[in-house]
């Protein structure tokens, strides 16, 4: 967005709405060996699909709590709101995520690569 630069070590998977993001996607990505997962959706109230992000927010709140319970560092999985017009914000958040994950180091807890 607006060609604002952000770190090149993220890969984007397109989904229609943050509501589509099943916890499977997140866990599978970690199992696959990705060092971190980011889910980005529209701000509450601005959901293109009215309330998909609110449904998702509850799901993510629970998932985040459980990841925490199971001893996964909270910064491995990040949830954020960022609208289509907030290129700056998106870039800043991605920079922050990258910084956080670099601090954590490689994701070694999930050894499976299958």
């Amino acid at each position: 967005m607006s060609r604002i630069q952000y770190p090149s070590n993220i890969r984007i998977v397109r989904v229609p709405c943050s509501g589509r993001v099943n916890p499977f996607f997140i866990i599978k990505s970690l199992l696959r060996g990705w060092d971190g997962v980011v889910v980005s959706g529209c701000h509450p109230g601005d959901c293109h699909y009215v309330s998909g992000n609110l449904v998702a927010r509850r799901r993510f709140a629970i998932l985040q709590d459980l990841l925490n319970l199971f001893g996964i560092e909270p910064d491995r999985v990040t949830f954020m709101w960022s609208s289509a017009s907030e290129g700056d914000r998106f870039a800043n958040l991605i920079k922050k995520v990258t910084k956080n994950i670099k601090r954590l180091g490689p994701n070694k807890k999930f050894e499976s690569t299958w």
Partner: protein
Amino acid sequence: MVIEDQNKDIEQLIRDLARKLLKEKEVDVILGYTKGTIPLTSLPIVIDKVEDVDKLIWNNLCYINLAKYLVPRIPTLMNEEGQKLKVGIVSKGCIGRALIHLSVEHQIDLENIKIIGIPCNGIINRKKIEDEIGEREIFEISVSGDNIIIKGEDLEQTLPFNEYLNDLCKTCQVKSPPSIENICVGECLENPVIEDDFSDMTEFDSKTPEEKWEYIKNLLDTCTRCYACREVCPMCYCNLCFVDQNQPVWFGKTTAYSDIFTFHLIRAMHMAGRCVGCGACSSVCPMGIDLNLINRSLEKIAKERFNFTSGIDPEALPPMMAFDMEDDQEFMMEED
């Protein structure tokens, strides 16, 4: 009143109510517990005759959540024409909660059920006893006064009842099923109010992610993936559990810790706001894995995030079935 006497009273209550329901043809069968064939167990039983009522018992080893027998996946309680029987179900608090939650999720019709409410006085943690006794065979377990008496070969040991309760029972605030008009008989709770500070979780919560990871790993890594925890759980009624799904095969089924971990993590995810805290999963685990920590945490998440306790109100929607603009979102990342 000492535990021993409470048990006698509860047993009497069950038998009286069961006899009455069968006699008055309010129900076709009674689902309850009878004495197990080996120590540290009880045996679920289905009776349909008044003369069998005295087989029904209550002790502190009635750990199976009988609500499980009513979910559609286990369709045995039918008459010859394949119609559902009207069932009277002996219900401690967590069975009542499970029934109510199952009705919220459209799995059972409460109209077909009579909840025989009893004031549960706690379930003994079998694992703790086994740990205590070690490699010696137990022949008999009984409750005397406020103590558990264990007898075996060259063995007689007295253990304080309260210390050997399931952790979930220690914090349980719904000992009798929540009352529903025309469905409940016996002892039920009117409009239960749950107030819980989850102080038992404080110690665990204060651990670092690394410590938690080690703790949970140590807890789960003996899992043999027999899925007894899932099968005994009244809330696990899916046709096809996520772990068994193909197209695609999301998660591995091996005993590698990643796969074990993933199964338990996602099962916990699916239990959030739904677990009724009966502890049956821990009681039945052949490897002795105690899932109470996860179950308590699920209750905590539901309560603290969404002010919801499962299986209390048949009209209330569990957190994952609803959404709210005003939910907390402190976990969402913000710019610095």
